[in-house]
């Protein structure tokens, strides 16, 4: 089955070999290994990617479901200047320890900041509730996202 979709800003045409999860397509065939697999069951969010701008678990999607849609992975977010503040803030605040959750966290944070420029701590918590972190205890992650939001706001002034 042939599918056409947009991946990190570029149109891609691919032949799917059969039933394949989106995360396997990304990691194993397209070498986009920034997206992580934690649980494979929708619970940890390490596999989060943007589907038409909305965070989804790539472990719970079939590759054939992305035909005609746009996917942005952590590689796409990292290459996008609009999100540079998020990556920097994660580094500065110590929101990254082992780093396994970070790609998913950053993708979720990018989706939040794209639609809400001044998120409250509660809005940040709600937006990141589907992303688990076993290391940081979350407060640094929340701090990072709110710092990134402040910087984006300052720049726009």
């Amino acid at each position, binding site marked *: 089955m042939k599918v056409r979709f947009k991946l990190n800003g570029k149109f891609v045409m691919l032949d799917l070999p059969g039933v394949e999860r989106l995360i396997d397509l990304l990691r194993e065939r397209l070498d986009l290994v920034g997206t992580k697999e934690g649980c494979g069951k929708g*619970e940890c969010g390490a596999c989060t990617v943007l589907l038409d701008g*909305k965070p989804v678990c790539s472990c719970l999607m*079939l590759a054939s*479901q992305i035909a005609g849609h746009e996917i942005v992975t952590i590689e796409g977010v990292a290459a996008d200047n609009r999100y540079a503040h998020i990556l920097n803030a994660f580094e500065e605040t110590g929101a990254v320890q082992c780093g396994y959750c970070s790609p998913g966290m950053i993708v979720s944070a990018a989706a939040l900041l794209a639609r809400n420029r001044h998120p409250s701590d509660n809005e940040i918590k709600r937006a990141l*509730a*589907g992303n688990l972190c076993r290391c940081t205890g979350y407060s640094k992650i929340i701090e990072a996202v709110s710092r990134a939001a402040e910087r984006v706001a300052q720049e726009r002034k």
Partner: protein
Amino acid sequence: MKEQDTINPSSLRQALAAKARPNLVVVAGGTDILVQLHDRVDRPWPKLLVLDGIKALGKITLHDDFVTIGPNVTFSEIESSPIIGKYAPQLAQAASVAGSVQIRNRATIGGNVANASPAGDLIPPLYVLGATLELLSVRTKRSMPIEKFFVGPGKTVLKSNELITAIRISKVKRIGFFLRLGTRQALAISKVSVAAALMIKSGIILDVKIALGAVAPTVIRAGVAEELLRGNRLDAKLIDHAAEAASKEARPIDDIRSVAAYRKEMVGILLKRGLTKILESM
């Protein structure tokens, strides 16, 4: 796992034609099915019929007397729909507390109903809204009240060649609520949930429906509590009686998510909480 292509129809007609074949597993958002398949990775996967490319099944439409919700409508879409907010606030509340952002962006109402979990969060609201399901096969079309659809946990009267093609709710405006309890706020399946819809005029409850989730093999109505409330003036004492009655109507089991006694008690507490809020706002 790479066995065969999935079937991805773009029209309902194609989907129904495909569904006439045996041993096909339907995928909408995939948030239940892919979890189930994950646990059996090394066996060949069944043939999958993927519905989410059928645009016609993904709409919320307003008619003269009712609202139609397509089975492919996601929790996120329900949460943010002004139509649902107006005619089915319980449903919007349930959709907004379930899962996580990632899950809500994919999980569909059709999948929640077809999956038939007694803890499915959209089901109690659909009970109290008196929802009707439309079930279609290549040759047949039938409608039924949602309460007739479930037989047991994961078991429904859906025939192997049928699909849920629409969910209808009436446009009668009622007040109501959906409250649930999980181990944590996000990503926890409900241990107990309560939905209610009421019609109140000058303090008197003209009509009321209450549904309880996760406390029996299917979602159930709290008929005794409803009977106590109907025709009476909503006040603190009546609320206590109704809460006590609803607690007794729950028939929960002990499982990994909670114990039965706690669940029974929580049914009463959630109902009391919801009704008290309505009383306070009157």
